């Protein structure tokens, strides 16, 4: 059962990813990414990480993707021309992609770490649920937590700086 779910989710994630890079129209790419994200959330659930899965759906598929959709709608999603101005890019990029995958896969599969080949240890109930994660966030990872909040603030400021129409305002 788990295997089936995994493969379904995996195909969804991978299909979504391929969709992102294959779609001509950015709008469809965004949609493909949403598929990808939901599939990922499913995978997270398979890994008994309920909180992460939830956050994935809420934060990403919810908030971030909405932002994307808006921006795509704002700037318009024109297709790209098929002409490749960089010599060799078309040829080298897939090559490198494959190489990257093989290297990473080899690293994982040839590792002497036995746990990799297993399903993972038995975990207590509550592993990965909001309470556990929340505790970790406020105890051990308090600093990253706080820092990321400041980062969010800064990013918001940045977005305003970049996207606000100050120029016309000043003029």
């Amino acid at each position, binding site marked *: 059962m788990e295997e089936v779910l995994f493969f379904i989710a995996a195909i969804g994630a991978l299909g979504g990813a391929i969709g992102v890079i294959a779609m001509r129209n950015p709008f469809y790419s965004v949609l493909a990414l949403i598929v990808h994200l939901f599939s990922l959330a499913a995978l997270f659930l398979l890994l008994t990480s309920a909180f992460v899965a939830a956050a994935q759906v809420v934060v990403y598929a919810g908030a971030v993707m909405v932002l994307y959709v808006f921006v795509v709608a704002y700037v318009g999603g024109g297709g790209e021309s098929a002409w490749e*101005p*960089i010599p060799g890019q078309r040829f080298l990029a897939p090559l*490198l992609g494959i190489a*990257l995958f093989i290297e990473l896969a080899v690293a994982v599969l040839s590792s002497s770490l036995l746990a990799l080949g297993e399903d993972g240890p038995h975990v207590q109930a509550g592993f990965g649920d909001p309470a556990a994660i929340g505790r970790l966030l406020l105890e051990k990872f308090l600093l990253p937590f706080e820092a990321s909040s400041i980062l969010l603030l800064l990013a918001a400021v940045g977005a305003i700086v970049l996207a606000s129409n100050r120029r016309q305002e000043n003029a």
Partner: protein
Amino acid sequence: MSATAWAWLVLLFPLLGSIVIGVGFHALPQKVAGIIGTVSIALAFACGIGALLSLLGEDPEARHHASSLWDYASVAGLDIKLGIFVDPLSVFMVLIVTGVSTLIHLYSYGYMQSDEGYHRFFSYLNFFVFSMLLLVLAGNFVLLTVGWAFVGFASYALISFWYRRETATRAGMKAFVINVVGDIGLVLAAFLIFRELGSFDYGTVFEKAPEVFTTNEWTITAICLLLLVGAFAKSAQLPLHTWLPDAMEGPTPVSSLIHAATMVTAGVYLIARTHVLFELAPTAADIAAFVGLATLLVAATMALVMTDLKRAIAYSTMSQIGYMIMGVSIGAYSAGMFHLMTHAFFKALLFMAAGSIIAAMANDQNIDRMSGFGKAMRFTSITFVCGALALAAFPGTSGFFSKDEILAFAEARGGMYLIFTVLGYVGALMTAIYSFRLVFRVLPGRPCKEAQELIDTGHVAHEAPKNPATGEPEDTDVGFPGPEHHIAEQSLPMRVAMGVLAVLALVGGLIQIPGVDDVVTKFLDPVWEGSPLAAIEPTLGEDYTGLGIGGVIALLGIGIAYVLYVRRPELPRRLEQRLRPLHTLFANKWYFDEAIDFLVVRPALAIGRFANRTFERFVVDGLVNGTAETVRGAGGVVRAVQSGFVRSYALLLIAGFAGLALYFLLSSS
């Protein structure tokens, strides 16, 4: 006063004279400069006499002294002092040098009177005398080299005295460079001596040499050969002689003093001085003797055909020095030195007379154009004849005794050395012929235009001076005054100088007549103490046979010259045509200049050109520029990769990662 003190004074006066005249060239009136120059040399001569007397007052065995002023450069085991060595040989040389120099200064006093560079001339001349005396008195091989080089430089300065004349400057350069080659020989010899004997000092070296070296060992042979390089360069022996004829570009007193009487005999002195070494290396000594012989013959042939008056005399100088070198190399030390002395007298005289004549010819030196000066310039002619007689070894003159003594010694030594006697006489015959060739071509006959003018008006109305070699007008800013002051008849100092020398040339030989007296030999004998060669003495019979043969040959030579140049003046031309190749060879100076040009000068210039045009540009600069270009090319590559496409940056980043990851995977265990 001790002999060494006198010797220091001998050195001091010419140096002072040179400096005073040189520094005070603006302030001193011309006459004063001339007087200072002459007097300082005369004082040196007087001090030389002082040294002589001082030496004579001592035991013959103790007649050698060393003295030094200060440590010149003595560290690291090299002990070089500013030291002199006084013994009969050096005093003998001092006397000749200062004596003849005094007369020549006197001559120059008149001769150079209207020259622009009068001060300069006397300063140089005094400096030359100083250098020569330093060479003679030096107490070690380093100081010897110093004197040796100073002399070379003085010679350079005086040859190119009229420095806007390019033939003169070129000749000066030639002389200097060849002299430097000689210096190098000396320096290398000094190194070898130091390496083997651990000292540069004459005293130590001569004392130790017989203990350290075995006869004909390669080192001592090498030392002697290197010394010979020095000697040959300075004494114009084959093949390093080519500078001497060119040196005639200098003013005539210079030719007279330096290139006849003193400097060129330095090689003879050197061999005599280092005879201890040469006796240990008989091979080297023989080589020297053969070179001397060759030079004497070759130079004589050239002198036979030269049409340039001064150059002809110059070749005769070479030839005579060949005798001396031959003499001192085979062991006839005293005889060699004696010939050196007499040669100084008559050769200086000949040049002086020639200078007078050339002046009358408005610097034209071609004997083909001269004739009839016997009537025009009586005093000059008489002295010229005196000189020529001595040179031709006319019986009774100084050259007669000195030359024959060398040949007699060779005969007495016997064996192989008989060759020297025989060929020496051949040379003597040629000597007589060429010396009287000059006399007969110049003095008798119908006066040429200039001579006639002299007879008519007492002076020559000369045109603007021209360089006889190139024909271009001279730059009179630096000299070349009118001839009237050059003519011996018209200047008392010149006449005095020539007169004294004429007398000496005629009678100078009388101090050493076999069986009658032997002043020179007796005085010099302590120097060759312990030398087996010096002990060889021709018997009286041999001596007189030699003298007899010599006299006959001299007369024969003069006779031939008379026939050729007076009785049948058309004969030389016919001979010339008959012996065309030989004449061409002689007239072209045996092609020595050409050979040197071909073997040394041209390759050097070709290498220089190659270095300059090719090597420097393509290799040295090419290396730099090539590196720079490579680096710049690499920069171009980097800039090309930096294409501005962000996706290409991403590509490189990922490629870099892939590479790095690959490395790590490969290195993982």
